């Protein structure tokens, strides 16, 4: 049962991991993208749209295409969202918080609009879109997982996107810490004027980091819909986008810490189904869902008390940069 719990915790954590890795990369460039929940939502629906039309246009789906088409659509959808955010906050220097929140509202609207439309198109009268076949391809895992007992359950029982999320987080951690690109990206987020004086193209770094971050976050939405759920229903994504942003703080802006953090958050998110407290109905069990946020607040308190400069947010996070304003 513990193995099954860990397995479910990891699966719950993966959307958060995608989201937080994307957000960390974005924040390292000095941009606080509160549009992440909306972007993840759009990432999910874009994949659903791709998958839906592919499914309905052919008799027999090609497994490779059934994976690649939703994947590509998801990346494209979240890239567009990222570009909107960049154009507003980098080029036009709009307020990042307002832009991000607007983008979240917008993204959820877009998702629900297309979700509703596709439901109508499918003509089954159901309120959700079944993606059973594609989901099977996404969930395809190592054939030997069953034979390894609990080791197989915990380590080898997932679809490729779970491993992808971990790999992306590890690569992001390496790039940020150990490469020249990472150094320069961090400089842009810490002190854009200094980066500019050092000959770094500040706006290019901001654009690339924010768009790459959005695309990675969007994959979280895709994973949740196509792999984890296998079905799209409007508003089904819940508060996972916000949880991803909380995870950024929990992970003190380090993607490798984010991996463990996401599994922890995933576990805390589902722990209520495993712990039965007498007198707790379904309504009361919702209390458990606040655990990840409580943990985040504790982390904030601890890092603030310790005052270690490395665990603080990038210094110019949320501030627009304009060269002439010295």
């Amino acid at each position, binding site marked *: 049962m513990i193995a099954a719990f860990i397995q479910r915790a990891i699966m719950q954590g993966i959307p958060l991991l995608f989201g937080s890795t994307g957000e960390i990369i974005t924040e390292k460039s000095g941009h606080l993208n509160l549009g992440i929940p909306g972007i993840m939502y759009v990432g999910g629906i874009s994949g659903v749209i791709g998958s839906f039309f592919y499914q309905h246009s052919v008799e027999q789906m090609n497994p490779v295409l059934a994976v690649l088409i939703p994947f590509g659509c998801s990346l494209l959808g979240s890239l567009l969202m990222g570009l909107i955010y960049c154009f507003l906050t980098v080029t036009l220097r709009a307020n990042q918080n307002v832009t991000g929140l607007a983008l979240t509202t917008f993204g959820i609207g877009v998702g629900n609009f297309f979700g509703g439309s596709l439901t109508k198109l499918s003509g089954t009268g159901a309120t959700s879109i079944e993606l059973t076949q594609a989901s099977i391809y996404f969930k395809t895992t190592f054939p030997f997982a069953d034979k390894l007992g609990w080791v197989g359950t915990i380590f080898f029982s997932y679809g490729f996107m779970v491993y992808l999320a971990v790999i992306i987080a590890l690569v992001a951690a390496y790039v940020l810490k150990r490469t*020249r690109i990472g150094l*320069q990206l961090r400089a842009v987020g810490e002190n854009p*004027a200094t980066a500019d004086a050092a000959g770094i193209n500040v706006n290019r770094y901001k654009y690339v980091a924010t768009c790459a971050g959005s695309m990675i976050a969007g994959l979280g939405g895709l994973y949740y819909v196509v792999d984890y759920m296998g079905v799209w229903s409007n508003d089904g994504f819940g508060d996972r986008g916000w949880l991803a942003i909380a995870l950024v703080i929990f992970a003190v802006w380090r993607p490798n810490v984010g991996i463990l953090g996401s599994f922890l958050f995933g576990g805390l998110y589902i722990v209520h189904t495993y712990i039965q407290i007498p007198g707790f109905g379904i309504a009361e069990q919702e209390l458990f869902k606040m655990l990840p946020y409580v943990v985040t607040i504790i982390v904030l308190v601890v890092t603030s008390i310790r005052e270690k400069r490395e665990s603080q947010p990038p210094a110019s996070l949320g501030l627009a940069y304009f060269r002439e304003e010295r």
Partner: protein
Amino acid sequence: MSVAIELKDITKTFGSVVANDNVCLKVDRGEILSILGENGSGKTTLMNMIAGIYFPDHGQIFIDGEEVVIRSPKDAFRYKIGMIHQHFKLVDVFTATENIILGLEDQGKYNLKKAAQRVKEISEQYGFEIDPMKKIYEMSVSEKQTVEIIKVLYRGADILILDEPTAVLTPQETQKLFAVLRKMRDSGKAIIIITHKLHEVLSLSDKVSVLCKGKYVGTVNTAETNENQLTEMMVGKKVTLNIDRSEPKNCEKRLEVCDVSCMNREGVKLLDDVSFTAYSGEILGIAGIAGSGQRELLEAIAGLQHISEGDIYYHNPKTGTTDDLRDKTPLEIRELGVRLSFVPEDRLGMGLVGNMDIVDNMMLRSYRRGKGMFLERKKPKSLAEDIIKQLEVVTPSANTPVRRLSGGNVQKVLVGREIASSPTVLMAAYPVRGLDINSSYTIYNLLNQQKDKGVAVIFVGEDLDVLLELCDRIVVIGSGRITGIVDARTTTKEEIGLLMTKTEAYKEDKAHENA
């Protein structure tokens, strides 16, 4: 020796302001050139054009005898020009090495260890003491400066520009820096150093170029000059302004500043043992190079700056009692009639709220006096209208956000509001900054009116000509110390100029006390 860099007829304008007007400059290899000039004489602008931050309107730059075009900091690196800015450009959470290699691309593989090794080599070569792996936020100011210098050396710069490098250093650190600079000169680098301090110019440089109000005055060999000649070149000829100045009447001691010292958070003294007396019915000028402690002094009097030592006594004309302002809150000090009208660099930073209209800004001072829970708008409104009329503030109405007014009108509103409460001490810092001639005269007249009413006016100014013609006495402040108190009617620009660049403290003698 060959000419490293030469500027010919460089002109740069910002809007209608001419920052540099046909400036010429020449530096040889193995030579240190000082650039001397008052605030706003265009020194930094000129250097920024060599470093690629600004682009000249016209004029030519030659490096090693060949004409070049420098459009960006990258171009400047290419010509081996390195500038150490007054405000450091460093990322706090990075190590020294990370900051040094930031932005360098064509250096092969990213290898911090190798870079740190190279940083060490450079440090040893020139006698710096630096830990390449130390984080910037753990460093002292002089260490940060060292990082900046190594940064340009790492890039292979052989023309170095230092913008007021000693402003933030202690005397010992300054000596160390000079030793390093001399070493660099001896190894054939060309060094340009901007400074206000005459004794540094004389002890360090080989040649001195002087700028005055954007114009190039001339270049002299350090060995053949002295402080007096340089000051004369720096302050320029006296200009007559014809400001009406009345004789001070009914002078009484109003404000006594006794041995006041202030420190900033790092424990550096911003004010060091400052003492002077301000009398009613006179205008006391405060002269000094920007950032010498003028702002801190005024804030200390107004209760906004913590005083670590000393006292400020206020002789209350109404009650005849003497209060120590040190123990009072800013609000209490204001109620006593000590008014501060500070015009900071960004004008709206302190005193006025840009997005609020003139009436609301009047209420910032009076809202506490209202009765009941609602604000009273009538009185502030009539006050706002009075100010608009009397001071000829150009505004569509009293309900226009202050932000939309021009600089001069903003200043009139600010000064007008402080005067309206009939103060006993009026402090005005840079009240004419950025104003045209007519607006400036309006402000001068306002201050003179207050003086005639028996107010003790403290005027912090930049323009020595104005200080000489407006004030009765002038306190000169340098590096947080008072370097002299002179009678404005008998002193000369040169005398003040010399005092401004001095750092030794001066104690008020009894002769001036009775002025």
